[in-house]
């Protein structure tokens, strides 16, 4: 039985990272129907920026802060330069556009930081064993921070005026504009939030799974699959989807074959898109955020 829980712990930790990426997808799509394929790159970039800042002698918390701010700026600049100028944005256009941005960002990271994988030092705390299950301190940090961040994002969308304005753009774009909410500003804000979410994921994952110029690809794909479990529009469902996907992957790797680990996400994606394109957790495809 301890094997089972060991796999679940590893799955939850990995799943929380997927959840953060998935929330980024949902944060943008729910406001603007844009699918941002550069979401994974935000994570890789945060890890790399923090690594080089820490390498330059900055203390770890400061390096992480530098990374968060840099990635947030990149996300907003990306939206201003590539998304905002497009007059008639469709989901398909956004996929092609952001795929281009993602490729450019990867090339940039490869040029600046080189091809080798490196990891940030783990956050403080010591690993321990409970009932035969070994838990890394970093696992607790990942789960804890993910839950706090998820809570904050849900609170923002549900309880604050600004968050409600974003939801208004999502649900009734024309009416929102009539009452003076700018969909353009709303999209910028959504990219800012997504950038921060991606950066947090990258910083938390780096000590365990290392960061390199192309680590965003897998993270982005898995995060996207997790987000589709919630129809790409629900933050709560994105979190659940991420955790579920992580655990499912770990169990498949442990009990069936580790070679199938990466196939899990894509099987899930196909099943969801065929059976429940509106998301498995939502009763109706219309319910947002």
């Amino acid at each position, binding site marked *: 039985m301890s*094997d089972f829980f*060991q*796999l679940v*712990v*590893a799955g939850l930790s*990995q799943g929380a990272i997927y959840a953060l990426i998935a929330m980024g997808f949902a944060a943008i799509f729910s406001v603007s129907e844009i699918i941002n394929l550069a979401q994974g790159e935000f994570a890789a970039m945060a890890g790399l920026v923090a690594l080089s800042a820490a390498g330059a002698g900055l203390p770890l918390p400061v390096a992480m802060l530098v990374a968060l701010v840099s990635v947030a700026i990149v996300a907003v600049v990306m939206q201003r330069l590539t998304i905002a100028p497009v007059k008639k944005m469709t989901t398909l256009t956004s996929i092609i556009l952001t795929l281009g941005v993602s490729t450019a960002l990867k090339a940039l990271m*490869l040029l600046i930081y*080189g*091809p*080798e*994988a*490196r*990891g940030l030092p783990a956050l403080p705390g010591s*690993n321990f*064993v409970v009932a035969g299950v*070994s838990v*890394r301190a970093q696992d607790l940090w990942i789960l804890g921070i993910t839950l706090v961040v998820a809570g904050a994002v849900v609170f923002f969308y549900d309880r604050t005026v600004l968050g409600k304005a974003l939801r208004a753009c999502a649900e009734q774009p024309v009416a929102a504009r009539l009452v003076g909410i700018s969909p353009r500003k709303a999209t910028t804000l959504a990219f800012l939030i997504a950038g921060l979410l991606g950066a947090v994921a990258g910083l938390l994952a780096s000590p*365990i*799974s*290392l960061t*390199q*110029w*192309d680590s965003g690809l897998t993270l982005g794909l898995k995060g996207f699959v997790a987000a589709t479990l919630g129809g790409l529009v629900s933050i709560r469902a994105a979190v659940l989807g991420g955790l579920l996907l992580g655990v499912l992957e*770990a169990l498949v*790797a*442990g009990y069936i074959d*580790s*070679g199938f*680990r*990466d196939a899990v996400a894509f099987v899930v994606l196909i099943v969801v898109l065929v059976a429940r394109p509106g998301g498995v957790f939502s009763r109706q495809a219309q319910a947002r955020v």
Partner: protein
Amino acid sequence: MLRSPHRKAVLALTAATLILAGCAEEQGGGDEGTPEETGPVVIGAVLDITGAGASLGVPERDTLELLAEQLNADGGIDGREVELIIEDNASTEDGAARAINKLITEDQVDIILGASRTGPSLAMRPVAESAEIPMISLAANQAIVDGSEWVFKTAQNDSVVIENIVADAADKGYSTLGLARDASGFGEGVEELFNSIGEEFGISVIATESFAPDATDFTAQMVNIRDAGADANIIWGIPPAAGLAQVAYRQLGIEVPVYQSHGIGNQVFLDTAGAAADGLVAPLGRLVVRDQLPDDDPQKEVITAFADAYEAEYGAGPSTFAGHAYDGFQLAVQALAEAGTDGQAMREYLEGVTDYVGVSGTFTMSADDHSGLTAEDLVLVTVENGEFTLIES
């Protein structure tokens, strides 16, 4: 009717077509002639510079660039300049096949080095064989050179690594082994080799798990290895995956001893594995323990000279992979110097290499053995306080 920009475009296109046709003709003609005896000598290299093999390919690229620069500063080969063309295969098999095709057809290289890893090397082998161009792989799996005519290699064969591990395991009285191996070419056939070499000592593999070369989570594999309850376990991979697997091994509290392969001989492994690496046992080339070698070690001089030059240029010591690139380059240069740029003559020269003292070992090739290294070319190494330490035998 054509407006002028269009006309310009048509003209430019026509000109481009003509130029391309001219190039093709030239290439076709060049294939039939005898190799040129003047102009630069061209060495092509296909390395895993990006992707899962980056921690191998980057130091190999650095080594080749350093050596080519030194060689040209000293006057090249018989007064001919050495031109080095390095291609990145992005750690993929198809990338490697494309790269070697480009080197042969476009760049018309005289000899080829690479790839860094087994999978891409295997993908290059049939191309080199059919083009009849000598190729020196820097990767480990014996399958790269088994029965080959034109392909050689400098990294120690997996079989000689396994001979070392099995001998040590037999000494210590282990009979069952658990294996967590790289799922790509590097790990192919490793279990079978352990079983066949271990047979006479009564040693066999009782559980095998595999991991992708770019895997980051090893909980599942290590849980299964732990449950198998072998006398000792082997992690067979390259950094950073091998380092992350080592961390997971310790984190899951597996207490039986762990062996690693010769794929871990670099700083990336030590950095990734951290304290978890302490106490492991691995057969590695002498390069990583160069400070601890006795003065009468025949390789000490070569290794020290290379390591000093590398460190002076790049500010950090070379990895064993850099050593494989050093040996590949030196063998290629010797073949070019002694046999000229004729493929067949170079091939015969390489097959006749005897007692060449390199960084990865002392090479003695033959028609049947295109690797040229034996179990003697590895030493058992452990890790103490984050540094490779020679185990006194």
